[in-house]
């Protein structure tokens, strides 16, 4: 008798918990150093120099958390998967498990989501420490914070599944240069989307960027009194994007798993 898919799912989770918990410090360093350094420059140095207003930190903090959780999620899934399918072939022992291949892909996405949330939880106190008191920061809507964090991390984790299975090992540098870097700059992480009204064309174009919805979602959850995109729209966009990424990612995963 084959074991139930959920039992196998549980075993896959235990494997990832075992491996990831050992690698956690390196993982956090790799994925959060960039947003933390950004926080230091734009949330500490520039306000002190008087180049940006002190109120800027209220717009910056949710965005920095959005970047952290999005890119921790995408990297947690995509990087090992490129290696797994490209040269180490280590994932083969899981592809031989008596479950449909989508179970293995889904587990990777869930594990990536959790890692994204951990990265955000790590960055939050560090950023708060660097920037000092932040005007408008409000944890009253705790449920919204949790919901947005999970949804944003899941969306980018699913995006990681798609990237990790669609991209070949030799293209990984290209992926960061052409996809990840523009996404960060035009992801409304370091400025609110509403403020882009100053450049209306850019404001429309950035709407194709999934990071915009994560940043704005975090804004709506953490600094609800400051300008942010409507949360219903953010939620709809993230649900739609994660559905698209999952559907495409599961297809490309299956193609790599069964040639």
């Amino acid at each position, binding site marked *: *008798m084959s074991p139930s898919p959920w039992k196998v799912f549980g075993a896959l989770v235990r494997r990832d918990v075992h491996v990831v918990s050992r690698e956690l410090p390196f993982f956090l360093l790799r994925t959060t150093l960039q947003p933390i350094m950004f926080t230091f420059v734009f949330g500490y140095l520039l306000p002190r120099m008087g180049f940006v207003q002190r109120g800027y930190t209220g717009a910056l903090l949710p965005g920095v958390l959005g970047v952290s959780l999005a890119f921790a999620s995408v990297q947690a899934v995509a990087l090992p998967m490129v290696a797994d399918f490209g040269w180490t072939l280590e994932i083969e022992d899981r592809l*031989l498990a008596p*479950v449909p291949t989508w179970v293995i892909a889904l587990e990777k996405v869930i594990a990536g989501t959790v890692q994204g949330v951990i990265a955000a939880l790590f960055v939050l106190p560090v950023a708060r420490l660097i920037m000092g008191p932040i005007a408008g920061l409000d944890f009253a809507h705790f449920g919204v914070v949790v919901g947005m964090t999970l949804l944003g991390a899941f969306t980018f984790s699913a995006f990681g599944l798609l990237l990790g299975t669609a991209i070949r090992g030799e293209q990984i540098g290209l992926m960061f240069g052409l996809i990840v870097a523009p996404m960060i700059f035009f992801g409304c992480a370091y400025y609110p989307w509403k403020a882009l009204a100053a450049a209306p064309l850019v404001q429309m174009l950035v709407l194709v960027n999934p990071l915009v919805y994560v940043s704005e979602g975090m804004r709506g959850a953490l600094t609800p009194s400051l300008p942010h995109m409507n949360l219903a729209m953010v939620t709809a966009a993230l649900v739609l994007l994660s559905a698209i990424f999952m559907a495409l990612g599961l297809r490309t995963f299956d193609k790599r798993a069964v*040639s």
Partner: protein
Amino acid sequence: MAPSGPPSHSASSGGREIQALDGLDLAVPAGEFFGLLGPNGAGKTTTIGVLTTRVRPTSGTAAVAGIDVVRDPVGVKQRIGVVPQRPNPDRQLTAIQNLLFHAAYFGIPRSVSLPRAQALLDQLEIGDRGESKVEQLSGGQQQRLMIARALIHEPEILFLDEPTVGLDPQARLALWEILRSLHQQGRTIIMTTHYMEEADRLCDRLAIIDHGKLLALDTPARLKGRAPGGTLLQITLDGEALQALQGVGSVPGVTKASGQGNELTVYAERAGETLPAILRALEQADRAPVDIRLTPPSLETLFVSLTGRKLE
């Protein structure tokens, strides 16, 4: 029961369709040690890929333990163990963790898998390496770990894809012993190899395949009996072989002669007596041998006669 039907697979790349397997029709009964013998690129790995659900056949059917590989891949995976061509252990885990997690992927609780894992490591003579990181294991030890992993869930059928490639002779002999004892325990084993000796010594029955086609299928002893008469002489000449072909072919004792480029391929009874006559025939054709290789009747000579080329 482990019948495997006729899998057929073609993969397209860059608009060019490559047929990896072409009407390969095989059935392997339970308990047999079955060998797929052929040169690199013969379609051995594709065949294993189809049977282990990792390659989707474009046409034809394949069944493992009576289960169709396309319709019920999960059912097939439940019943098979696979040893890959290149060891691919989970490098983030220790040797024994590789076995315990793999067992867990099959729903086996730790209380069952832990003693089983230790017993397997002991049986494969790496019992003291359980806590070692995978990188600390030698190539041969990693390959044994792969065998232990393939057995931890007690599959009915064990697939091995070129299991001894890259192993030193000593490790290869040790692995042969392990495979023999697994076979004696009644397990069905399907192995690919391009080593004649390995196929000859281990397998109950052999399929010789090339370019995805089945060329011969029988026991090693009967296959060797089918090898064309006498010793194979492969002679490299200092010039075109065709000129010498007629003269060499009419030497008494020569059963078959063919030439390609500078290579002359001759089958002869009692090579010792025939060789001087062959050399005289070459001289008359104004050709001198640069190199002469003699091979007694074997799977090797059968293979050359079937495919016109050497295995390795």
